């Protein structure tokens, strides 16, 4: 089969690799009908996430058709059309039972490695480094899906791939981020980052009852999407002298009730080693790498909530923890517990509350992926979201350059 393989920083290629096999009784094999490039894939593209290995298959947003099931999978049958959550979860550990699916105790075969980084291991993820299990991902023609009796979620035929694909990650991620804002009636939510997750967070904040959403970015087409699609008020941070004062002024002096960092480590980099950080502190070297998180904490109103869907991997410098403590803030974060949100969000799609395909700007063949990683990374051609189909399933008449 064809698959998008990682060979180093900005080095991807579409390779012919062996078709995946059932390895465990609870596995299934999915024939991919649609997949996508996620903003968090760019962290891998830029080699910002440790423990990537040459030849790793990327991709964690994918859906398709069940073509084979292991002996332990009884809820799926060949031919079922499913979306596959990017989080891999066993369904029976303490964490899965609490619906903390992305914290599953059993699905990461590299738990020991993850423990050295985080104290405890988090769940396996598709196509996202060996720290989260080293599972081959979904930017491929076929994928092996472990614990297939837990993750894959059947979707109705009347909804198109474009409408349901983002249930795998960015829609629930934006939704959980909005839920983590603990929105109450009358609330204003400020969201840093108008990438795909930010866009879904804007819509989700309204679905969860926010009065106002203020979206912050510097990419004009992303701000335009936030305004037109998301009905958010927008701020281009490059156009304002003092973002904090601007937010304060826009909220009658009280500040946003909740502030969301939908940017994460990439825009300002990150550091991944405790020892490195230790040395850096000792020698007085400082980096300025979590600009957004600092701003979100600083600008949040007293007693408000900071929600962090943005990905972080290591240690942070100069977090304004005094402001955080003195203002009595709450912070909520984590990888998305995708399975928890699927019935609710599918319902919203079926009711016409949201059509997740609004975020797609580019529709391409799988074999074009490496080039479009570059376009997405450099935000060329007003790229916000790249939707892909395996070459043989690609219908050129549906190609649409926005």
């Amino acid at each position, binding site marked *: 089969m064809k698959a998008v*393989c990682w060979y180093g920083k900005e080095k991807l290629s579409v390779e012919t690799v062996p078709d995946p096999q059932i390895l465990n009784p609870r596995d299934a094999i999915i024939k991919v009908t649609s997949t996508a490039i996620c903003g968090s894939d760019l962290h891998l593209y830029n080699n910002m996430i440790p423990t990537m290995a040459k030849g790793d*298959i990327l991709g964690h947003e994918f859906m398709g058709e069940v073509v084979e099931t292991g002996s*332990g999978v009884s809820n799926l049958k060949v031919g079922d059309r499913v979306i596959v959550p990017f989080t891999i979860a066993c369904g029976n550990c*303490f964490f899965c039972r609490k619906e903390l699916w992305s914290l599953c105790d059993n699905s*990461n*075969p590299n738990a020991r490695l993850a423990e050295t980084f985080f104290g405890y291991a988090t769940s396996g993820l598709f196509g996202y480094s060996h*720290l989260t299990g*080293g599972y081959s991902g979904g930017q491929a023609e076929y994928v092996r899906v472990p614990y297939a009796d837990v993750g894959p979620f059947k979707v109705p035929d009347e909804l198109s791939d474009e409408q349901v694909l983002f249930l795998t990650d960015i829609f629930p991620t934006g939704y959980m981020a909005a839920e983590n804002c603990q929105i109450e009636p009358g609330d204003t939510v400020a969201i840093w980052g108008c990438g795909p997750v930010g866009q879904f967070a804007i819509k989700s904040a309204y679905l969860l009852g926010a009065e106002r959403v203020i979206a912050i970015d510097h990419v004009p087409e992303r701000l335009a999407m936030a305004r037109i699609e998301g009905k958010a008020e927008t701020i281009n941070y490059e156009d304002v002298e003092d973002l904090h004062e601007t937010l304060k002024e826009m909220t009658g002096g009280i500040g946003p009730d909740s502030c969301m960092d939908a940017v994460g480590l990439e825009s300002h980099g990150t*550091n991944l080693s*405790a020892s490195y950080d230790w040395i850096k502190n000792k020698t007085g070297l400082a980096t300025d790498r979590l600009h957004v998180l600092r701003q979100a904490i600083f600008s949040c109103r007293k007693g408000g909530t900071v929600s962090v869907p943005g990905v972080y991997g290591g240690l942070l410098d100069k977090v304004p923890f005094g402001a955080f403590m003195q203002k009595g803030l709450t912070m909520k974060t984590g990888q998305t517990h995708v399975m928890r949100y699927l019935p609710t969000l599918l319902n919203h799609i079926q009711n016409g509350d949201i059509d997740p395909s609004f975020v797609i700007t580019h529709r391409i063949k799988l074999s074009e992926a490496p080039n479009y990683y570059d376009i997405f990374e450099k935000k060329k051609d007003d790229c916000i979201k790249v939707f892909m189909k395996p070459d043989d399933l690609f219908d050129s008449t549906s190609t649409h350059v926005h």
Partner: protein
Amino acid sequence: MATAESALDPNSRNERLWRDSYETEVSEESKNAFKQSAKHSHHVSEKNVSEPERIISGIGGGALAAYGFSRGDLLGVGLIGVGALLLQRGVRGYCDVYNAVGINTAEKENMTSVKASAAVKVEKSFTINAPAEKIYSFWRKLENLPRFMLHLESVTETDQTHSHWVAKAPLGTTVEWDAEIVSDVPNNMISWRSAENSQINNAGSVWFKQAPGGRGTIVKVNLNYEPPAGKIGAAIAWLTGEEPSVQVQEDLRRFKQLMETDENATIKGQSTGRAKSTTKFDVNGD
């Protein structure tokens, strides 16, 4: 096999051993349950690295890790790991290798330090979301053990209390020994020890206790053993990633997976864009 009834026979030998090893832990309130384990962890917290050595270890470790990080390649990741271990050794003043080989450079300055004993001691706990009955009976069928203890090749039960163990050793060799079950309290604990003059003298116990709040069962393993090549052998094993405590931890992790999910998480055999399915990052690699 020593059933609950025979174990409770005051005249039986098992009962005496059961009292020795079990009574203090189980017959009292749960707050005392892991009294024995507290002694062990106390031992682990002692310092065995001297002050000047700690400083050198800490600075060197930090610098090594920083260099490793700056490389940004695979070797770099390794250097970060080694650096972090040295750093940790400096901060904690405790070195697992020193403990394994019975060295204590801090002893002169800290006369209360416990000298590392002859045997390697390991103690690990996991909470498993399953009833004690299921966990105990899987474990009690000793022939199941190689399914999650990867260093074991086979366990053969010769009668109800005796068994023959074959374990993998370096360079494709094996070591074998006979063991007997010393105590067996269904759904509560099993303890065992090797026959006299075994290739590996070892003794251990596994305890099953109900976890609070419906979380299942806490499984705790205590293991003492003298490795074949003595303590130096254990130190070499530690350097090659087969440190006993890590081995027991990973065995228990696989056991938890089996009990909770009926399989072991793996990527061995998956398709990738390289010749091998796993990489050197993968704990359970090819």
